[in-house]
């Protein structure tokens, strides 16, 4: 049995965990649920040795252990799969699988042949059809995530910690993971599982521990807990299914057209977006949705034509796309969106610096302060002020800053790349309202989301992508979660 008792952890002024105690029995899958910043990831990192707790004890099968590094945790049989991939992209699949325990030849050099054979066996055992000598960086994100999980499982853990391990996986891959977790559970492995998606918690876990603001709210059997009850535990107030605001009606004016876009990951994609329309993009992860948005914004090179408000975009690049009235909120907040060393204010005005120009090229400090203060109030960003470093903010508030930066550009077309992934319910609802409001004002929105229910709630029309093509277009009553998921897996014609 794994027992984490009275765990405390403080970061600067925030208490990430407060006297949290959870237990996992062999042969169970324990879910950890909670909003962003509830402390789930911190707790799992404490168990995995990635973070040292300030106070509290960890015991495994009655023995007290104190893993100070992931390495020490692994020595006790506790293996983690983190939200961030820890694979070495420049190394091959086999080298990644045997990073610390590669089979050796007599003189201490690595036995490549044995390593390749053993790697191939591991991959085959887990239904992964990847060549063992592939460079990991060349694999699609979903397969990298699967490999990460397989690598952890191959270490034959007593305890497996899965921190948002499904975030890069599509529907079929999630089913794969579910089978894997079940077989581990049946073999007596303890599994701790974090996910933002309640349906995954229900399908993966026997029991669930709910955290809120660093404290344990309760532990229950997943079968005995309704979703509404769980949401109430997570948020502290009663909320039913996330509510979606009124979409308004799309106008007849065309905001954007794209014709026969082709690239390495796009295969003859065309679309038309009306003013005031919210066009959803769906499908399995990595079917070209992100590249389509980047292509429209000029950040992914394509052949084909793009026209904004009737005028063609020539040699598209982000700067020109912005001038034409486009705005793009990327998926990876920390690597593609924010400047983490800079302040909240500097992040807010990054895309609109040209509007703050004064004599001699200086930034208009007064106008900037006014803009920033207004934006913080309008978006209810929780911060001590515009000068606070952005990295001090929670994920949800960082996301608000990023979205508001692009709203400040007063775009006529807004491209959203899975902007609610990993964001707590409160922020999600805020984002839904803000986007619906600007769509009602006539802004055209293209919104890629990995969450089919979200697309149903926000979009007028949904394009489902598969293998770089638009596999299906769903309008009106056709826009249902079932239809989106079905089209994602099977393409058109069903």
């Amino acid at each position, binding site marked *: 049995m794994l027992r984490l008792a009275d765990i405390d952890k403080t970061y600067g002024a925030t208490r990430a965990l407060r006297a949290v105690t959870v237990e996992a029995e062999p042969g169970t899958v324990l879910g950890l649920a909670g909003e962003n910043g509830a402390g789930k990831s911190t707790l799992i990192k404490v168990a995995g040795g990635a973070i040292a707790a300030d106070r509290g004890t960890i015991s495994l099968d009655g023995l007290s252990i104190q893993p100070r590094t992931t390495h020490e945790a692994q020595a006790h049989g506790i293996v983690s799969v983190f939200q961030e991939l*820890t694979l070495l992209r*420049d190394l091959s699949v086999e080298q990644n699988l045997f*990073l610390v325990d590669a089979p050796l030849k007599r003189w201490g050099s690595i036995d490549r042949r044995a390593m390749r054979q053993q790697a191939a066996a591991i991959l085959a055992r887990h239904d992964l059809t990847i060549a063992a000598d592939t460079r990991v960086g060349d694999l699609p994100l979903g397969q990298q995530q699967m490999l990460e999980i397989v690598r952890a499982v191959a270490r034959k853990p007593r305890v497996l910690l899965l921190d948002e391990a499904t975030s890069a996986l599509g529907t079929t891959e999630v089913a794969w993971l579910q089978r894997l977790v079940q077989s581990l559970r049946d073999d007596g492995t303890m599994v701790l599982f974090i996910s933002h998606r309640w349906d995954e918690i229900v399908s993966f876990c026997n029991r669930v521990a709910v955290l809120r603001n660093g404290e344990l709210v309760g532990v229950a059997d997943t079968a005995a807990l309704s979703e509404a009850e769980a949401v109430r535990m997570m948020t502290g107030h009663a909320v039913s299914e996330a509510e979606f605001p009124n979409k308004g009606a799309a106008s007849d004016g065309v905001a954007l057209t794209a014709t026969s876009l082709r690239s390495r990951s796009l295969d003859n994609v065309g679309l038309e977006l009306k003013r005031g329309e919210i066009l959803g993009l769906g499908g399995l992860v990595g079917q070209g949705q992100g590249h389509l948005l980047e292509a429209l914004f000029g950040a992914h090179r394509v052949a084909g034509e793009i026209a904004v408000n009737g005028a063609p975009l020539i040699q598209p690049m982000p700067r020109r796309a912005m001038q034409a009235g486009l705005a793009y909120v990327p998926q990876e907040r920390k690597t593609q969106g924010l400047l983490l060393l800079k302040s909240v204010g500097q992040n807010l005005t990054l895309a609109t610096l040209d509007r703050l120009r004064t004599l001699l090229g200086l930034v208009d400090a007064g106008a900037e302060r006014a803009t920033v203060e207004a934006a913080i109030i309008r978006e209810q960003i929780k911060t001590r002020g515009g000068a606070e470093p952005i990295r001090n903010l929670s994920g949800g508030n960082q996301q608000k800053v990023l979205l508001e930066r692009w709203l400040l550009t007063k775009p006529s077309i807004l491209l959203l790349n899975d902007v609610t992934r990993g964001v707590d319910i409160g922020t999600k609802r805020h984002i839904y309202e803000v986007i619906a409001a600007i769509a009602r004002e006539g802004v055209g929105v293209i919104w890629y989301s990995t969450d089919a229910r979200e697309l149903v709630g926000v979009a007028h029309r949904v394009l489902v992508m598969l293998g770089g093509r638009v596999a299906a277009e769903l309008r009106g009553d056709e826009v249902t979660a079932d239809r989106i998921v079905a089209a994602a897996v099977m393409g058109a014609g069903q």
Partner: protein
Amino acid sequence: MSALRRILGNNWPVSVFLLLLLTLIVLKGRFNGFDMRALSVNSLPLVLIALAQFLIILTRGIDLSLGPIASVAASLMALHISDNAMLGIALPLFAGLGAGLFNGALIVGLRLPPIIVTLATMSIWQGVALVLLPDPGGSVPAGYQAIFMGSFSSPVIGLVTLVVWTALVTWLLSSRFGLSLRAIGSDELAAQMSGIRVRRTKITAYAVGGMLAAVSGMYLAVAMTSGSPVVGDGYILSSIAAVVIGGVPLVGGRGAPIAVVMGALILTITASLLYFAHVTSFYQSLINGLILLVVVGSPGGRDYAAGLVRR
């Protein structure tokens, strides 16, 4: 064939070297044992420092103090070996090891950027060499030359030495330690999270690098039969150049030792080429610079640098 490819990494630097060698032979009209010995012995110090630099660059680090470490080693050897052979050999090696450990400990322990730490230790070791040996001097009995480099007409010992050191580093890289080095250079945080002992591995890389630099300095002292406090300064940047010409990207994680050796040989042979082509030595650094740019700037060069990932 594939085995050969695996050993050579990629034939780009090998071909360039062979081409230059051929040109030299044509210009000179001969290439006998004497020439071969000269080439292997002249290139040996740069080969060793370049291999040291390579181990460190694999971890996405860099070491500007390797040249001065070689100077310290050469000075220590020249000061002591006539009186006490054991001391004259052990002292420089320990100095190199200590200097490398010092670099590694500062870089790993305080998470300081390698380039600035080794910039500071570069100054320190340059100073130490000057304190030990204010002017070129000391002596290394000529007998050592016969032992470590062979007689003037025989290339055997020189070539064997070259092969042995290359093989040693190749073996080191094919071990788990080598895989750890590549992993750290590829993504240090991910390597840490994957259970690699990042701190220990990095410190070891700097320590081994320091030792190799010391050995290089000792070869220099043997070749000159004396010590000099500035003998290693010329290698501070040329060791980086050799690694780069060997197709190793400075962002770490990739590269093959044999290619680095070829990089060092290419730099060495261009010097003799210019001499025999009756080109003033003024052009030498100009040409070295151009080679460097051609290697890293040409599309072929870049592909080839990337291709080295696959062993």
